[in-house]
């Protein structure tokens, strides 16, 4: 599979992870550090069901999917393998949600950051337990798998070697199906009256209680929902890689997802999505950093144009009650003088990045290895420059310029800032 398609798959999985974590860390203002752990729970459950399930049902763990899981596959849209895969992903979500309930209930009753501590511990326990499991039963031993009771199969998860040689069902279709589903569910939640209740908990827990919100119940709900999607993401991850190893799903993984949520703006769905996309691309970019200066130059030109020419656009209700997209351009040069500061910043940052890139190239330093350092730096800069994250609690369209409905005969309004 091409590098580009792989990045797209990673982006999709990261969207599921970041958007689901937004429900806990963004909406209710609790702090979970165990998303990697829930992903591991889901991933292993899905791996077990698909691998041992295939061996039990068909005597082979080969790929048995239809068109949706493999473009080259012929015949039916859906085959038995796909059904097993979807069931496995649902079971992965449910298992993670169940784990979330058990972990969340005691810690969410308490006020304060107990959740952070407990989830951190949970993630580590999951990792250690999974690494201590018995070796995977080989693909060739379908008869052994058939004779082994299910509960015993659940202890053969590959230990430190990880769970390998899984049939890969998680294609772009399935991953983006899950991503879109996550986005819809979480967006609807945010816009519902329960969504308002979630946000109120984050704003002021005592006042929220005074509004009649059952705070504990909502916190547990948010956490369980979030764990569910983390579990599904784990299942997708295992079925896209064809392998899963608990070592990769430790604290570092949880931290990456937290960064996506924080960068995007605690509580912003579009922010988390954007951050998930950017941070999924970043490692690829770092592997072979392209020149920065063309982008910097282009940005400078655009900024000059925006400073000199006001551009605004928006949707307004038109004369015949239809929606009209209007774009207004006006020369602003007479009204505004130059603003040099942003231009200097962009130029400076471009030069700094370009220098860093050249130094790395010349000294043969692989910056991809310093990814976590970069993440930490990004967090620090973000906390200084814009502590509420890219979009804060809002969505990006809340920032689009809004225009008053214009009268049919009137002139197009002046461009707004």
């Amino acid at each position: 599979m091409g590098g580009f398609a792989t990045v797209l798959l990673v982006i999709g999985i990261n969207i599921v992870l970041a958007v689901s974590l937004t429900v806990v860390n963004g909406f209710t203002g609790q702090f979970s550090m165990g998303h990697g752990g829930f992903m591991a729970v889901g991933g292993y459950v899905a791996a077990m069901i698909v691998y041992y399930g295939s061996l039990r049902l068909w005597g082979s763990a080969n790929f048995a999917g239809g068109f949706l899981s493999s473009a080259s596959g012929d015949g039916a849209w859906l085959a038995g393998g796909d059904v097993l895969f979807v069931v496995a992903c649902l079971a992965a979500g449910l298992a993670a949600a169940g784990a979330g309930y058990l972990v969340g209930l005691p810690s969410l009753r308490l006020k304060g950051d107990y959740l952070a501590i407990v989830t951190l511990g949970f993630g580590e326990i999951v990792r250690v337990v999974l690494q201590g499991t018995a070796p995977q039963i080989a693909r060739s031993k379908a008869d052994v798998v058939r004779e082994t009771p299910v509960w015993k199969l659940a202890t053969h998860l590959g230990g430190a070697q990880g769970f390998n040689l899984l049939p890969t069902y998680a294609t772009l279709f399935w991953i983006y199906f899950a991503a879109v589903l996550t986005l819809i569910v979480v967006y609807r939640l945010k816009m519902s009256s329960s969504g308002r209740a979630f946000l109120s908990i984050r704003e002021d827990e005592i006042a929220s209680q005074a509004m009649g919100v059952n705070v504990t119940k909502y916190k547990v709900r948010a956490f369980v929902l979030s764990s569910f999607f983390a579990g599904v993401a784990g299942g997708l991850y295992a079925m896209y890689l064809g392998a899963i190893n608990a070592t990769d799903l430790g604290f570092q993984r949880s931290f990456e997802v937290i960064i996506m949520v924080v960068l995007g703006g605690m509580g912003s769905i579009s922010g988390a999505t954007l951050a998930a996309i950017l941070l999924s691309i970043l490692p690829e970019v770092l592997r072979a950093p392209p020149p920065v200066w063309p982008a910097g130059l282009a940005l400078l030109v655009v900024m000059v144009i925006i400073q000199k020419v006001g551009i605004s656009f928006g949707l307004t209700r038109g004369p015949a009650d239809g929606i009209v997209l209007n774009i207004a351009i006006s020369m602003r040069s007479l009204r505004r003088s130059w603003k040099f500061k942003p231009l200097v910043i962009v130029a400076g940052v471009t030069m700094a990045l370009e220098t860093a890139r050249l130094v790395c190239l010349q000294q043969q330093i692989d910056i991809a290895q310093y990814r976590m350092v970069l993440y930490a730096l990004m967090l620090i800069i973000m906390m200084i420059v814009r502590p509420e994250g890219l979009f804060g609690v809002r969505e990006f369209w809340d920032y689009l310029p809004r225009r008053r409905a214009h009268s049919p005969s009137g002139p197009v309004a002046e461009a707004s800032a």
Partner: protein
Amino acid sequence: MPLLQVSNLHVSYGSIRALHGIDLEVEAGKIVTLIGANGAGKSTTLRAISGMIPSEQGAISFDGHSILGTPPHRLLEQGMAHVPEGRGIFGNLTVEDNLALGAYIRNDRDGIRNDHERVLELFPRLKERLKQSAGTLSGGEQQMLAIARGMMSRPRLLLLDEPSLGLAPQFVQTIFAIIREVNQQGTTILLIEQNAHMALQVAHQAYVLETGAIAMRGPASELAASDEVRKRYLGIA
């Protein structure tokens, strides 16, 4: 039978005893005020009544039923709303969202819409600021929002904790006028105030709290006239 009856209420924070044996009654349709120095236990009394903190001993009944140990969201359903000290505004949400959260426990859409209108009539300033983040309102506007939000659950009893705290004199006047108006529209009010002067003017009944116990009680006008209260709480020699 009073709408709210508190008898022999004891509350502690760990080893700190905040209330030792409070008796208090609120008749339906009245404004009752609870005044007292800082740290006397006024907020504690309200929190215990609305179920936000547990009571150690004593009885609280609302509308004839014991409500000891009932969680706040249940009490709200039964018609008791608490506007806590410090307002507890949801700063990053809009004024509109704050009001909607006030009606969180209700699901009668038409009733909510009516109350929304009614509340905005009482607080015209909020009407102009529905889409604004509540955190950007001025202190006085935030206080208005807190009261308005408390009313959105259509309570029979409204518990107000220092609604005039930190407000300029003309704003204080407005707030008290509104409190009286809300009461005249049929809501019973238990009011905590530092501003004893204003509180005694609007209230029917008054209680004076001193270090966790009721020191004086009676019709507000009588207390306002007593030497003790004049000297200690109204600053009149």
